[in-house]
């Protein structure tokens, strides 16, 4: 196949600082963080910026999502006590809401997910 020639090629921007992974960041699949059992190293080598970190939930186990993704509507649902499927987004209004292990957006007292979704995961 012959490609038409571009009279004025668009410049390509390349930054040697970043790998393809950095430029197309992806998180861990299903919140699984494997191989993260390392303990803090000690005061001589631990970065100052990690002093005072606050511990959260374990991240290496299957989270107890009560929600299931619906491929047809492309949103998540949970089955209520009456057996009816309730969209997840109905549970994200202010006030008492069902507690999940990780989806915390909109739940007062819980952080929004941006803090848990830092896309620094690199698969081996």
């Amino acid at each position, binding site marked *: 196949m012959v490609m038409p020639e571009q009279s004025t090629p668009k410049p390509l921007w390349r930054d040697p600082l970043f790998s393809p992974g950095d430029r197309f960041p992806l998180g861990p*699949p299903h919140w699984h963080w494997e191989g993260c059992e390392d303990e803090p190293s000690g005061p001589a080598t631990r970065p100052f910026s990690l002093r005072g970190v606050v511990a959260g939930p374990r991240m290496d186990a299957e989270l107890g999502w009560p929600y299931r993704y619906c491929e047809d509507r492309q949103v998540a649902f949970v089955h209520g006590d009456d057996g009816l499927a309730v969209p997840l987004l109905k549970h994200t209004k202010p006030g008492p809401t069902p507690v999940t292990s990780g989806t915390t957006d909109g739940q007062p007292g819980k952080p929004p997910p941006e803090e848990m979704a830092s896309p620094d995961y690199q698969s081996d």
Partner: protein
Amino acid sequence: MGSRANHLLRRWPAPTTSPTEHRQVTVLILDREIEPQVDRVVEELAARDVPVFRTDLAAFPQTLTLDARLEPDGWNGTLATPRRSVRLREIRSVWYRHPSHFELPEGMSRPERRHAAAEARVGVAGVLCSLDALWVNYPSREADALKPRQLDVARRCGLRVPGSLVTNTAVGVRDFAAAVGGPLAGKNLSAASLVESGHLQTAYTRRLGPAELADLAGVETTAHLFQEFIDDKAFEVRATVVGEQVFAAAIHAGSHAARIDFRSDYSSLDYSTIDPPPPVRTGMLAFMRMFDLSFGAFDFAVTTTGEWIMFECNPFGAYGWLEDALDLPITSALADLLESGARP
């Protein structure tokens, strides 16, 4: 904004499709499956009869397939799941949030997995990023918007930013503290969280007075960010920018911890809507243009004298909890942007 500033960052090329050419509008959403912010937008677009193709990239290659062919006018082909498919040429806009890493078939060796993962990332990213579509936001914007770079761009855009120091020397910290003449804020340059001992660990902003600055062991182990601590902060603001629209929420802290970093104690927070002063609004929009962002979540401190001091902009920030608390129509604005496919 001078021409020098305009050349600081690359701008994504203008669309090559003629405005009068008919194109099917399909919104591609790349994120995890359990994400209420995305659910809202999906439902909003569905109510408008806008076709949506939502997928997590963890589905590739096992249940998500890509079949793309380079044609004289660009990549074409299909992206498909067992339930639906979309022609690449029909994708008008892409909402890129936090998709998961590809889930590869079991049984691969570690070298095979590394190879397959790299091939998947370059292949899928290479094709999708070539599409003539609006990206909200383009995936590399997070890498572009490094915090030190953000602070400098914000300054160029007329926004006030805190005095800041990036260093790996204790003497540098002490000199900076002496120059500031007050407490410092210790912040992270990159992600605020890590997984250690199997647990999520979150590093919130710390207020560093003389006692904390007396022992700076560990500063030399990597780069650290220190800023002047805004002691006369009245409240903080999360300003969510969608295209040219700004939705700002004042965040009033009700505890000592939340006054240092509101993320550390959400239960103590109260919210109210607020209009950014015109120069701040102008500065935010200039910042968005500089980084070629269509969506951004800015964090400010507002002092008791009414000065707005910008900390950072998260190109993938959360907004759902503020939309709920204050009835901010952010979902609708995002749906408008994605449906139009128009670059701000």
